[in-house]
């Protein structure tokens, strides 16, 4: 909660900075807990309903805890043309998750993203921000086992 206060202070308690404040919390904490939202509402003098509206509108925000590792599968048009939907199917099979879901022991979250701008590497998959080389499903399953 102290950290939330620091973030709010950095943005000078301005109501118009709401999106920026939430984004900073999301980036650090990987999700937006209710206590944090209440604190933001109190400090920025913005009704909690407005905050809920913003937090559910933008895709970057999550109101539920996310896994320790995030698998991003790019489904932008360039990757789509290079077979991203089959890659997404493979990752869904291997993790047992659908895109947008997190497993029960909070290990992996699987996300569909639209274009981080690495079209030359498509179909593009990244885990925790690092490029994941595409291999056969069996090898990929081995690679996933290495994550704690």
């Amino acid at each position, binding site marked *: 909660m102290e950290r939330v206060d620091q973030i709010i202070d950095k943005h000078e308690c301005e109501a118009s900075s709401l999106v920026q404040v939430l984004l900073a919390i999301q980036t650090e904490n990987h999700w937006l807990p209710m206590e944090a939202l209440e604190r933001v509402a109190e400090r920025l003098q913005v009704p909690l309903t407005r905050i809920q*509206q*913003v937090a559910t509108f933008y895709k970057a925000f999550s109101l539920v805890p996310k896994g320790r590792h995030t698998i991003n599968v790019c489904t932008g*048009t360039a990757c789509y*043309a290079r077979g991203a939907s089959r890659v997404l199917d493979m990752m869904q099979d291997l993790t047992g998750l659908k895109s947008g879901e997190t497993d029960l022991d909070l290990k992996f979250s699987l996300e569909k993203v*639209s*274009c981080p701008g690495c079209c030359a590497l498509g179909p593009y998959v990244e885990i925790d921000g690092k490029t994941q080389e595409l291999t056969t499903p069996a090898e990929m399953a081995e690679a996933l086992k290495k994550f704690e």
Partner: protein
Amino acid sequence: MARINSPAELEELRKSILSTRDANKPCITLCSGSTCHASSSKKVAVCIEEEIIKQGLSGKVDFRKTGCHGFCEMGPIMVIYPEKIFYTKIKPEDVPEIISQTIMEKKIIERLLYTDPGTKEKIVHEPEIPFYKNQMRLVLGPNGSIDPKSIDDYLAIGGYSALVKVLTQMTPEQVVEEVKKSKLRGRGGAGFPAGIKWEGARKAPGDIKYVLVNADEGDPGAYMDGGLLEGNPHSVLEGLIIGAYATGSHEGYFYIRHEYPMAVENVHIAIKQAEEYGLLGKNILGSGFDLIVKVHEGAGAYVCGESFALMTSIEGKPGEPRPSYILPIFKGLWNRPSVLNNVETWSNVPLIINKGADWYAQIGTETSKGTKIFSLVGNITNTGLVEVPMGTTLRDIIYKIGGGIPGGKKFKAVQTGGPAGGCLPEHMLDLEVGYDELKKSGSMMGSGGMVVMDEDTCMVDVVKYYLEFLTGESCGKCVPCREGIRQMLKIITNITQGKGKEGDIELLEELAALAGNVALCGLGKGAPSPFLSTLKYFRNEYEAHIKEKRCTALSCTSQKV
């Protein structure tokens, strides 16, 4: 860094920077743009730094981590100056050899050179590679030679000289006239003449006005704005300052999508450096003109690329568009006059000021002037960022620069303009790219996405892909978009699953006409375009799906073959 108080002091600084640089000194530039970064250019950079010290070359060779060179397919890319030796797909283990052979002994390492896939010939120098030879890199050019984190690098290539010219020799009205005369049109998609927009904002009543950079590049498969901001943020910033001077604004915003962390970082650094030099802030270069610039990160919403949605988002609200009875140049951000231009539009401005509107207006076609950066991606041999004069044919871009379709497959379609654009078939390849030419053909320029699709792509599935994307991105404010796109997606999904019925095409056409005419913003209005253009050029595929339950590209999995 000392603050610069006058144009004369800036020129002195420029001279002193140039005096420390020797054009003949070897300089290694390594692409550190997003794609190369993702393919381990960071590790290569560390190796180069270590190896330079290890081989005793400190001070004798310069090393620069640059932005995107454009030829992403071959990344990580290294160019060695002054000869412009071009090495591709560099791995950390190649570095010691490059330093000892190429830098010290001036020997070329054959295996790292680019091989022309047609002639099998190895090409040594960057300008001789077909990918670069056939381009006109006015805006993207400096990306390959400067360190985006260094304002001195930008000053060394003549940066901020357009700003000096504007502040010392031109009135705001003259700047607006010059931009109008250049016929520069907005590079974000709509193609509205920038000069006319500026003039409107200049004349709009109100003391407080804003200038905004639209860097919410949401079109999936397009990354030219990201590439520019990562590689040359000062050129965009210089354009923005000139625009602020011309329109009488004292506050500016960069709206950058958070999926581009490197662009966000480099823009922050650029703003800080410009402030320290006195190129931003109070009394810029002693001219009495003030401007502060802030960065606002987008939180992941395609619709925020729309002008009103973007402004609502900066205000800290959900990014929903407003009805556009009153243009943003009169009532935009916080209901005040606002000029919103795309990244690429802004970075064209210093060029126009430096070289003159007449020079600029001779490039391109009658109605589309200058160059355009395209993000050439999909089933194409040379994926990358491509800058060509307006009026270049699609065939030249795809075959001469792009190197054609890989894997011996046949070309099927090229998709331009993103989710609001359309797919053009092979017989349209001789079309010259330009705002009006593309529009007439049923597609659009958009922000410059160009996705090439080979014979294995099912056009009905492509439309399904775009409708799925847009269903998820529709903000939900207006019914034609929220419900219309959803219904279209339902029907198209049925068609791809072999459940298509007679009359589906007509129903889709009806829905498309409705959404296209009455949706609130460009997202809904443009949503039917992929469907309408594929129906125009690939009607047989729809009919094969519906009547014969057959997918001609053998791509829809639940169809009978």
